[in-house]
């Protein structure tokens, strides 16, 4: 993590580039941008060591608006390009900004593999359940029945759940937040950056133009307490506007149920306690959705292991490059001769 205490303290504004932000007025992307700028200011992150890599989509414009290094690449490929960046320079903090189309449709395979390999990057999936940039076609996260220009009669396919997918792909850090949670986002972003290895963060993001209000029931102040649950490591799974609802496992089964503390003899001790390292619990949490269950927000899973870069460099598999930028002729000759003069040569006089 490229964090330091510099001479001059940087403010959130210092992490904004000079480019005018070109999202639709009211787009949820603005809030995410702001939360990110705040996060980096909180951490006093080094701009020169921070890189945002994105694919194509409204969300993928993100790098243009950050004053760090940025690469707006091609549709779906940000994880692969980011992996290359880390192979060349593991010291950089690399963030991937991607959309539900970019990351879950065309880019699903790279997403699987960057997670499985545990490359030390932070992946922000802006999930607005729609293709914004191309004017509103449904996406692989759109709910069944979504009417869109390419599904005028309503979409037919079951959506993919990004967090479930991330877990199924071997992700070791899986979190979820929304564009309305201005205090929660920075916390999650910090955790993601701190995690060594691939961190996957799904952000529910409102597309005001093509999919307005799909998350309304999850983000509006009056409904959110009953439709969402904020999980925290070591704390019981409690939610509800009165703070009295909770999740427990039906005794003797693996089946979760919503209970009310104080009713039918249920006490807080009966509730499931969140354990970030429990993959089974995490899997269950990712699948929670209203009306039956509250949508789970927060760090659903975090079970660190060696990152890909640590494995490559830590095991001495790849030597440090000799003389980068120097091209010392003698060193080059010596190294090349190491290759050439392996057994099997002969001399002609």
């Amino acid at each position, binding site marked *: 993590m490229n964090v330091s205490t510099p001479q001059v303290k940087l403010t959130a504004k210092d992490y904004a580039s000079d480019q005018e932000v070109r999202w639709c007025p009211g787009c949820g992307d603005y809030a995410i941008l702001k939360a990110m700028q705040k996060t980096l200011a909180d951490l006093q992150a080094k701009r020169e060591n921070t890189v945002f890599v994105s694919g194509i989509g409204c969300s993928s414009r993100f790098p243009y608006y950050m*004053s760090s290094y940025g690469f707006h690449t091609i549709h779906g*490929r940000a994880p*692969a390009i980011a992996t290359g960046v880390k*192979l060349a*320079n593991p010291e950089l903090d690399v963030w991937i900004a991607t959309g539900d189309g970019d990351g879950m449709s065309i880019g699903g395979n790279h997403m699987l593999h960057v997670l499985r390999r545990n490359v030390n990057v932070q992946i922000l999936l802006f999930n607005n359940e729609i293709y914004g940039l191309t004017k509103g076609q449904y996406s692989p996260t759109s709910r069944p029945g979504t009417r869109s220009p390419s599904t005028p009669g309503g979409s037919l396919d079951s959506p993919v759940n990004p967090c479930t997918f991330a877990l199924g792909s071997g992700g070791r850090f899986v979190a979820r937040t929304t564009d309305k949670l201005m205090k929660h986002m920075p916390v999650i972003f910090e955790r993601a950056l701190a995690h060594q290895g691939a961190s996957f963060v799904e952000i529910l993001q409102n597309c005001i133009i093509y999919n307005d209000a799909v998350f309304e029931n999850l983000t509006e102040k009056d409904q959110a307490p009953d439709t969402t649950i904020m999980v925290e490591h070591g704390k019981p799974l409690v939610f509800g506007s009165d703070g009295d609802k909770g999740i427990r496992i039906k005794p003797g089964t693996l089946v979760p149920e919503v209970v009310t503390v104080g009713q039918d003899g249920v006490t807080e001790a009966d509730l499931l306690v969140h354990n970030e390292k429990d993959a089974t619990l995490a899997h269950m949490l990712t699948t929670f959705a209203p009306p039956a269950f509250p949508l789970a927000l927060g760090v659903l899973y975090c079970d660190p292991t060696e990152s890909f870069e640590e494995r490559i460099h830590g095991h001495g598999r790849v030597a440090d490059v000799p003389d980068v930028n120097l091209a010392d002729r003698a060193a080059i000759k010596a190294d090349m001769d190491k290759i050439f003069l392996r057994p099997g040569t002969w001399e002609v006089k």
Partner: protein
Amino acid sequence: MTAHARAHPHPPVPITPEVDFVRIRFAGDSGDGIQLTGTRFAETSAQFGNDFATFPDYPAEIRAPAGTTYGVSAYSINIGKTEILTSGDQPDVLVALNPAALKINLPDLRRGGTVLVDSDSFTAKNLAKAGYETSPLEDDTLAQFTTIAIGISSMTKASVAHLGIGAKDALRCKNMWTLGLVLWMFGRGRQSVIKWLNAKFKDKPEIAKANIAALQAGNAFGETAEMATELRRFSIPPAPVESGVYRTATGADTLAWGLYAGSRLAGLKLVLGSYPITPASTLLHILSRMGDLGVTTFQAEDEIAAVCSAIGASYAGALGLTTSSGPGIALKTEAIGLAISAELPLVIVNVQRGGPSTGLPTKTEQADLLQAVFGRNGDAPVVVIAASSANDCFDCGIEAVRLATQFMTPVILLTDGYIANAAEPWRIPDMSEDRYAPFPVKFRTDPEGYHPFLRDPETLARSWAVPGTPGLEHRIGGLEKDYHSGNVSYDRDNHQRMTNARVGKILGIANHIPEQTVDFGEDEGPLAILGWGSTYGAIRIAVRRSITGDLPVSHVHLRHIWPLPRNLERVLSRFERIIVPELNTGQLTTLLRSQYPKIRLEPMNKVNGQPFHVSEIEAAIIKALEG
């Protein structure tokens, strides 16, 4: 062999088979260890001082059922006292370890040539599998050849019987018995093979012993058997080669080393992003073993991720490299466009194979040239160069890195399955020579006046500032960029200007590459043979032989396919006729016609998965000069 490998620019050209050179082909079941036998024989010939060229030809199946014709593996080698550049059109000696191998390879054998077979393998079952109704050893199939039928299997078993190893392991030594006999036929020693066997089986000494015993026994058979005089007929003295330290190397070896050398000369870390595919995988394998020298290799999930990881690496200041073959290159198309638009250095190696689609993965072809030059959306120019031999690969690897880094551009380097697999003796280059002067990359570090698309007025290359550099934080991407600020721009005139700049930058490279020369022969005349890539050897030998026969023909060979050398039209215009042999349906001809409508070109095409024969090109020369 390019001039570089041998300082002697033009050693004698091979004219007479069995005097100047001998071509031998080992053939057998894929399980028979044929490739290994061939490689050992090549190595021995090399150390003896012959010039040589090889052509491994193995089946597409990993291990087809034993005894079938599609399971036949072959290894051709041409050794000579002269310049040897091809594995030879028709073998003079065919070693066939089973009927299927005989069936497949006999049609190629020179009339009057020698056939050496393992008579033990000519069982009814094997004959049937090969599609022989009667045994070719008993009918007149082999009438026009000298046939030597030896019970190699039983002799091998006998030779290792005293070691008490299993029957299966015993029979596996068959190839070494055969090699022992062949080494005797050519009057070559066995030391280097023995040394190699001991090293290879150092953990299984009993296997090493058995193989050595078989080798010795095969050799002894030659010494003592009755047909001795008939057999020992090949005496090819060493070729007059330049002094130096040599090793054998395939095109995959020399290319991997050249690319690495290039990255070192540029002062960059080499990062390979690749996905396995025949016949390009060997490059990945070789570079994977160079981690100790600082090479990072990454087996990506697919070709798109492979090229993208290389682009990411270049973006972050390394030299991004990606290697593949036709179908994989097709998948990389979109991402190459990004590298063009972002103007990042990137080297893309295409080891061509038979197409279209999956095609013929293990056969050679040159049919991806137009894809390399034209195969992208938009006006998206790249540099294209092509290596002409295993030897040339080393220099082409360096040249690709030089152009990519100095001009901030993707470079496509074309080789093919033939070059990648064929082994040649290779004089180890002295990296302290001036031709290997470093060309270090200078990253931009000065924030003063910086913007990412600032261009060098001479090369038109943009400046390269890598993440981690304070004060140069910037954003790039695949959308059109402003010529002056590098920011996204939808402006009309700007797009025109940037398009012109991209096209102009690549065309301008013509001023930074060598002018075209005539490889052999006069600078003008009635006929030139114009080639590119792996047809080099066959063309060169054919042209040199023809000149020895006083035919007025010259050889011109292209390394730089795009941009073309700036004097190429002039060079070509000095010939009355120009024949263009290619292993495709006429792609270079198409390209050159589009550029030089005034030059008349005569395509000569072949698409059967095999390299050109010297004789085919010789025949074309004779026909052209007669006509």
